[in-house]
């Protein structure tokens, strides 16, 4: 199927000489949730800003729904709703007016019923006549989402949607995003909260210093790069790993108190049973054991470190 967004060889060099993007290639499939993960200053916002028409690209091309974002900007932009990172709002406008304003900007005829529906979905209906300056940060974030949805876009960009949002509201926000996906909207979110990508995304792209390091299905990514570790706490501290256990490639930590066994969970045999038998053979008594699967965070940190 044709991708809904196709980015090819996209580069951006700001006037200051800073290279925010260095040849990005990326395709987004219709209906997926794509998470763009990266540290601050990696180029996430620049990439989104170019696709949405806020920043000019230095090189490369982008199509949205097959429409070039420069030549055919009206068709391309009509498909996109953008929720910016900063809580930028017209403080003196009412919630209802500001959401209706965005719909108008996108060339859609007024439709109060539809606007009311969005406000209800986002639990903003009670606040529809409030001025934006009277709302909390979390509520303002919802208003920005409502504005982005006001013109019934096919694609929703969420730039750090849960930055500065408390935990319960974050969970609500995730729920909202899932519902949107169910209605067929393609969602691209940037985040530096790994938990968020792990929770939400179908696919993950990791960006650092203007380059896409990898793009992978989340499950695939976790499987390929995720390792599992078995930690064994031993009763008597060991000076070294006994010869008889050399084939397991064990690590000795914690002043000889902990043995760490790293294994591939997907492998045919994990050799755990054998290890435990050999431990007993060597006369090592185990007090406690714990298994740990590397999280996206571990993967992410190691990838970004590798690059630097």
């Amino acid at each position, binding site marked *: 199927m044709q991708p809904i967004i196709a980015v090819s060889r996209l580069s951006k060099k700001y006037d200051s000489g800073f290279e925010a993007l260095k040849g990005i290639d990326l395709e987004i499939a219709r209906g997926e949730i794509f998470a763009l993960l990266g540290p601050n200053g990696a180029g996430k916002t620049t990439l989104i800003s170019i696709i*949405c028409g806020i920043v000019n690209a230095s090189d490369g091309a982008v199509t949205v729904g097959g429409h070039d974002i420069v030549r055919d900007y009206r068709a391309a932009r009509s498909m*996109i709703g953008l929720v910016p990172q900063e809580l*930028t709002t017209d403080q003196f406008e009412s919630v209802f*007016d500001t959401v209706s304003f965005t719909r108008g*900007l996108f060339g859609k005829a007024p439709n109060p019923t539809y606007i009311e529906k969005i406000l209800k979905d986002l639990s903003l209906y009670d606040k529809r006549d409030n001025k934006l300056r009277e709302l909390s940060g979390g509520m303002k974030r919802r208003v920005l989402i409502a504005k982005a949805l006001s013109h019934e876009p096919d694609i929703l960009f969420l730039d750090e949607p849960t930055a500065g949002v408390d935990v319960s509201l974050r969970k609500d926000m995730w729920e909202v995003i899932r519902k949107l996906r169910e209605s067929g909207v393609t969602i691209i979110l940037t985040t530096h909260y790994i938990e968020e990508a792990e929770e939400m995304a179908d696919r993950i792209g990791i960006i650092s210093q203007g380059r896409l390091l990898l793009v992978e299905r989340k499950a695939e990514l976790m499987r390929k790069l995720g390792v599992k570790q078995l930690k064994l706490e031993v009763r008597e501290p060991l000076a070294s790993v006994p010869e008889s256990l050399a084939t397991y490639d064990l690590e000795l930590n914690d002043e000889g108190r902990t043995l760490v066994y790293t294994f591939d969970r997907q492998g045919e045999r994990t050799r755990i049973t054998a290890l435990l038998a050999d431990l007993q053979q060597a006369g090592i008594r185990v007090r406690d054991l714990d298994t740990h699967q590397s999280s996206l965070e571990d993967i992410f940190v190691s990838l970004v470190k590798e690059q630097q």
Partner: protein
Amino acid sequence: MNFQAVKSIYMFEMNRWKRTVLQSIISPVISTSLYFVVFGAAIGSRIETVGGVSYGAFIVPGLIMLTLLQQSVSAAAFGIYFPKFTGTIYELLSAPVSFFEIVLGYVGAGATKSIILGVIILATAALFVDLRIAHPFWMIAFLLLTAFTFSLIGFIIGIWADNFEKLQLVPLLVITPLVFLGGSFYSIDMLPPFWQNVTLFNPVLYLISGFRWSFFEVSDVSLVWSVAAILFFLVAALSVVWWIFKTGYQLKS
């Protein structure tokens, strides 16, 4: 053409204005009345007529021009500066609107506001002096062209300004002096010859003169020059706006 968007921007700006309508209307009405008291009554009683027109009536077109220029510039400048300042400009840039439509929305609203004020001042002035408008068509043409042109200039200032100080600077330091020195309260015949020649370099003189001619058929310069001047301003402003949008100056990096 995205008419919905033009309408949205225009209505947004007009609604913002409505919220402060009292202040927006009362202050020019009061200052106009004060000008009448000071110039019309105190000074006017010693001047009597200029070119056969009573001094009180003579200054009316100048007063309207003063407000028209000041308000067009500041309304349009503020209109486009504010979203830049708050950051909501992202919405305009990411919407399927052409630059032409953005300009039409903001400049249309700026011009509308200043025209409303101009009409209010005309009505206020009519309470103080006998007014007659010899050429209503020309009067309206000058009113519209000036309001639109100076709203464009205001739009340019709003794009250029990156702080509130710059936003105030041009109206205060350029527009107001040019209007005062452009014959709004006198005919340049009343100046010494040297200053008459200097004043001919003041572009605002041509606007005021033409506008006054449409009322009383008295003018400092011929109508042709006045029309040429306003068209020159219009073309110059349009060119700059066109350049801004072509380059994305102060809007897009």
